[in-house]
């Protein structure tokens, strides 16, 4: 056998080659990985970070260099996302003495800052190992895991620019940090008990408690306490998820009546006791992003009903920081983990803020002295038809970019401001779309301030200079107004993108469609968005590509009596539907004996119907979301009001899922409204009222509604697609979070042989709108279209 050295001598001529690696390749242990690989293969040369990613220069046998390249692509470090490895012309001479990791060249900006990552198996083993110097240390991390984005204050990403600045590394940590062979080589948040952040537990009065904070916190949680816990992207409120009384108390104190809480469980095995955990669910739970995963309740073991009242699903996540791992190890059961904030306000991240704002809620604070620089809620996903679909994109995903078709690289950078609710902004440049983390609803002043701060932070972190600003057509959105101000200040083009067009464009963009891709037929089912005709839209059938759209069909419009109030009070939509389809008086004449009519009469409905007829604060809208609310109200589900968006529709869906029988869907008609073909729910209402009269089970009615709407929308879409000459149909909009509806429409369309496109990387709800806005605007900006 020949040694490596001998092999090299007898092998082909020694050559020099250079590679450029692009993607998320900095701060993930990429250079040590390259160093190990090159050294193993007997290659000489050097590796360094620069403005575009990682640059590797190698000298050695051609075959070894080929193997190096293949291995790098196949097995990159766990957190790296390699977008491309391209070979460059060799630079200068080929003489290297061994393999060196060189200091970074300037401008590490383009490769971006990584999302936070769940504790890796190695770090976990260390904190559980009594012989390791990080035994039970709540802040262990390495280049394969740990906080990233949430500790960043500015660029470039090194310790001085993070909240770890205050902690000087001890000699041991510094040695790891400096050793290319160590997985903590250049791990910016590297820390140990000797030099890093410390953890403590304090009581409601701010007094630090002695003893092991983890053990004491676990003891108190077992005793029914509600604790505030400082995590990675903000504070959580935690309590025993099995204790009905405690969870109800948390709801009372947080003034959060019914919106489901997430639950942290120690491991997959426990999750599988409470939920039906599929293969993809498991993968999502164990992914480095460690999101909340929405899964069907198992029905075998149950958490307290107050955790997710009226819901068939439960959102579960696994511990993702050493602190969480230690706490849940000590506690041993499921813990409610809900983000700690005032109503409508962003999550609390600061210790003093937590002490004052959570004073009436938390009975103790498990906190530490590593400041959180950036807020990030837990991400929320759900597996649907085998695919992980994003519902809230935040910690673990932001600020990782989404790659669009490579032709987008040619287009000018665009900043998209997003919608009003579930706001995100999107920075699109070089074919990479960077969405901010989920920022919440901009109606709240504190959230809006955080939104503006975050948008400017992202621009700084990415050194991003847009050439155009993209906003929604709704001029009242706070995001639109912020975009208008920015465009005016910087003298940039402002491009207004229709809300539902942006939804469809988000599907195309994340699916990798090229900028000039042919149009698809889009079905958008949504709550409400401004149409280009000044009315409200929300159930749209449009032929759309990135450049534009043609509205081919819709839902028969109904008034929104009381404007935004119609979103919170389902009964208003029942009244509006009856008024729109039959006239309120005629409807009463037919069905006045029904419970829902009696309930409506207690509501001053005559006056509101009259106001709706006269257009007094009752804009017309073709909203799918409000149709669900109306049906829910007719069935007595949250007739009076809801406490979180989609509550009535979610319970309506829950009923539909529990029905066992196959039933005939309610019929929908067709109606021309000002020349636009529309689905007409009037026949559906007649049948539903008949079902109410004969006392049909609500489960059956809910199922008939879902299947009827799915059937009608599918058939309508297929006809329109056929007429438009496309066999691809894209689905988007918040209503598609309804699995029953989405699955049924998907099945109908697939059976008809069309290709169905859906959101997965970004939410189908308004959280994905900014991606669509950015893609549309960049293509329109190229087309030179005037705003």
């Amino acid at each position, binding site marked *: 056998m020949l040694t490596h050295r001998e092999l090299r001598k007898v092998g082909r001529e020694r050559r020099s080659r250079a590679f450029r690696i692009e993607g998320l390749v900095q701060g993930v242990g990429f250079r040590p990985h390259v160093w190990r690989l090159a050294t193993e293969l007997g290659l000489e040369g050097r590796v360094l970070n620069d403005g575009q990613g990682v640059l590797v220069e190698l000298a050695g046998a051609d075959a070894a260099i080929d193997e190096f390249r293949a291995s790098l692509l196949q097995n990159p470090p766990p957190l790296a996302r390699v977008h491309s490895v391209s070979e460059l012309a060799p630079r200068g001479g080929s003489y290297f003495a061994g393999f060196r990791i060189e200091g970074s060249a300037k401008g590490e900006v383009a490769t971006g800052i990584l999302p936070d990552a769940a504790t890796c198996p190695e770090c976990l083993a260390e904190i559980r190992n009594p012989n390791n110097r990080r035994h039970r240390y709540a802040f262990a991390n390495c280049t394969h895991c740990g906080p990233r984005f949430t500790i960043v204050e500015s660029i470039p990403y090194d310790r001085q620019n993070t909240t770890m600045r205050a902690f000087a590394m001890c000699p041991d940590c510094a040695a790891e940090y400096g050793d290319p062979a160590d997985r903590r080589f250049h791990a910016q948040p590297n820390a140990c008990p000797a030099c890093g952040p410390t953890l403590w537990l304090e009581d409601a009065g701010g007094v630090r408690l002695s003893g092991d904070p983890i053990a004491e916190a676990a003891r108190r949680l077992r005793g029914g306490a509600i604790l505030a816990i400082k995590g990675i992207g903000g504070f959580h409120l935690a309590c025993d998820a099995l204790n009905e009384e405690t969870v109800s108390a948390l709801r009372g104190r947080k*003034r959060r009546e019914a919106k489901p809480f997430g639950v942290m469980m120690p491991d997959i095995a426990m999750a599988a006791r409470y939920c039906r955990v599929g293969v993809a669910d498991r993968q999502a739970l164990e992914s480095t992003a460690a999101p909340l995963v929405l899964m069907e309740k198992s029905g075998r073991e149950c958490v307290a009903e107050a955790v997710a009242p009226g819901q068939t699903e439960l959102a579960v996540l696994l511990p993702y920081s050493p602190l969480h791992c230690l706490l849940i190890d000590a506690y041993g059961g499921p813990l409610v983990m809900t983000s700690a904030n*005032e*109503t*409508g*306000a962003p999550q609390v991240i600061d210790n003093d803020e937590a002490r004052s704002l959570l004073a009436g809620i938390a009975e103790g604070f498990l906190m530490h002295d590593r400041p959180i620089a950036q807020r990030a809620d837990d991400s929320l996903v759900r597996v649907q038809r085998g695919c992980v679909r994003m519902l809230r994109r935040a910690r673990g995903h932001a600020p990782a970019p989404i790659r669009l078709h490579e032709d987008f690289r040619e287009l000018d950078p665009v900043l998209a401001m997003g919608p*009003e*609710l579930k706001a995100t902004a999107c920075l699109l440049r070089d074919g990479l779309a960077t969405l901010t983390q989920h920022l919440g*609803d901009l*109606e*709240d*002043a*504190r959230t*809006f*301030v955080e939104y*503006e701060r975050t948008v400017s932070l992202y621009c700084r972190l990415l050194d991003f200079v847009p050439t155009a600003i993209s906003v929604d057509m*709704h*001029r*009242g*959105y*706070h995001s639109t*107004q912020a975009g208008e101000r920015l465009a005016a200040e910087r003298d940039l083009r402002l491009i207004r993108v229709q809300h539902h067009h942006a939804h469809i464009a988000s599907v195309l963009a994340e699916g990798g469609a090229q900028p000039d891709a042919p149009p698809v037929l889009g079905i958008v089912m949504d*709550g*409400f968005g*401004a149409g280009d005709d*000044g*009315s*409200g839209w929300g159930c749209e059938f449009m032929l759309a590509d990135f450049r534009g759209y043609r509205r081919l069909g819709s839902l028969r419009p109904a008034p*929104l*009596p*009381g*404007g*935004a*109030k*119609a*979103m919170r009070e389902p009964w208003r939509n029942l009244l509006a539907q009856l008024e729109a389809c039959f006239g309120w008086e005629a409807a009463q004449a037919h069905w006045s004996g029904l419970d829902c009519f009696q309930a409506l009469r207690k509501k*001053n409905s005559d*006056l*509101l119907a*009259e*106001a709706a007829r*006269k257009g*007094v*604060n009752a*804009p017309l*809208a073709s*909203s799918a*979301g*409000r149709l669900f609310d109306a049906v829910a109200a007719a069935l007595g589900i949250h007739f009076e009001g809801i406490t979180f968006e989609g509550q009535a529709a979610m319970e309506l869906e829950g009923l539909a899922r529990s029905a066992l029988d196959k039933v005939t869907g309610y019929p929908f008609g067709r109606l021309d409204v000002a020349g636009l073909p529309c689905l007409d729910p009037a026949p559906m209402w007649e049948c539903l009222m008949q079902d109410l009269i004969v006392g049909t089970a609500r489960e059956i009615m809910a199922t008939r509604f879902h299947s009827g709407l799915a059937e009608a929308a599918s058939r309508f879409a297929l006809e329109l697609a056929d007429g438009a000459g496309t066999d691809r149909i894209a689905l988007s909009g918040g209503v598609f979070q309804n699995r029953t509806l989405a699955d049924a429409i998907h099945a109908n369309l697939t059976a008809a042989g069309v290709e169905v496109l859906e959101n997965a990387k970004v939410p189908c709800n308004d959280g994905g709108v900014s991606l669509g806005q950015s893609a549309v605007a960049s293509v329109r900006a190229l087309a030179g279209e005037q705003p």
Partner: protein
Amino acid sequence: MNRQRSYRPRLDIRAGRIDMTHGSGGRATAQLFEEIFLPAFSNPHLARAEDQAILPSPGSRLAFTTDGHVVTPLFFPGGDIGSLSVHGTVNDLAVGGACPLHIAAGFVIEEGFPLADLKRIAESMGEAARECGVAIVAGDTKVVERDKADGVFITTTGIGEVPDGLDLGAHNIRAGDRVILSGPIGDHGIAILSKRENLAFEAPVRSDTAPLHGLVSAILAAAPTGIHAMRDATRGGLAAILNEYAHAARLGFALNEESIPIRPAVNAACELLGIDPLYVANEGKLVAITDPDVADAILAAMRQHPFGAEAAIIGEAVEDEHGFVRLETSFGGSRVVDWLSGDQLPRIC
């Protein structure tokens, strides 16, 4: 008198209607003036019937304002376009600290408008002016063809005398200043809406149209120096005023929702129709921005006055680079009370 009456039969107030001749500048115009406006406004300046009123010069500083009044319906619970047009101008003068003195009124009347209604409006104006201690000293009448106007439009212009040394305005507002509201909001807008759309609310709502100069005098007497700025909360409601102030003073405002007075009937109507009372027009409410030290004294003085009996401190000016008017809600929310966007679509449905 006899000679004037002789050139034409008297106007048929009961059944007569405005025609184009009433705006021609001819005899019909003069008759309209003499039989409707002059008796209603009766004062020596107007009786001269010249092209201008010649007025004594008041003190060293004048307040001067004009306001067009367009309202449907013309007659509504609590008032009509006549009293509204006087109160509007009196209030615009008063909130500048001025003592209102004289008003001029311009009428644009639609052909076919009933004389009875015009007389009723003129009399209402005259009565309102007398109550306010101002004289309607000059005027003008134009008639436009049918459908070119909506009944009658009235523009009133007023002058008033400003006490020496008084300086009110957005430039005086400082962080920490208190926001005092003179009474319940939303009455006027809801009364108008109810009448216009014929929506019969369970409890009837009357317009709050009222002159505020007396209330302003009481405020200035209570704290001559601590009052920083004042405005009446008309079109656009409380939200418009505070956004204007925030913008001009480069500050924000924090309002406490629970402290903002609103009548149950108005609240019920707003709830049902989904209307935000902060944006609803008032015609007899002012907002005073005051030094915190004198806020209680001013509040007490306002509450002594019939038009300020339900006055309340509703918030304060705060440092805020965004210039937000924030409403701290009873549920712990902090809602941005924006400018009206002009977009009638809801943001979040």
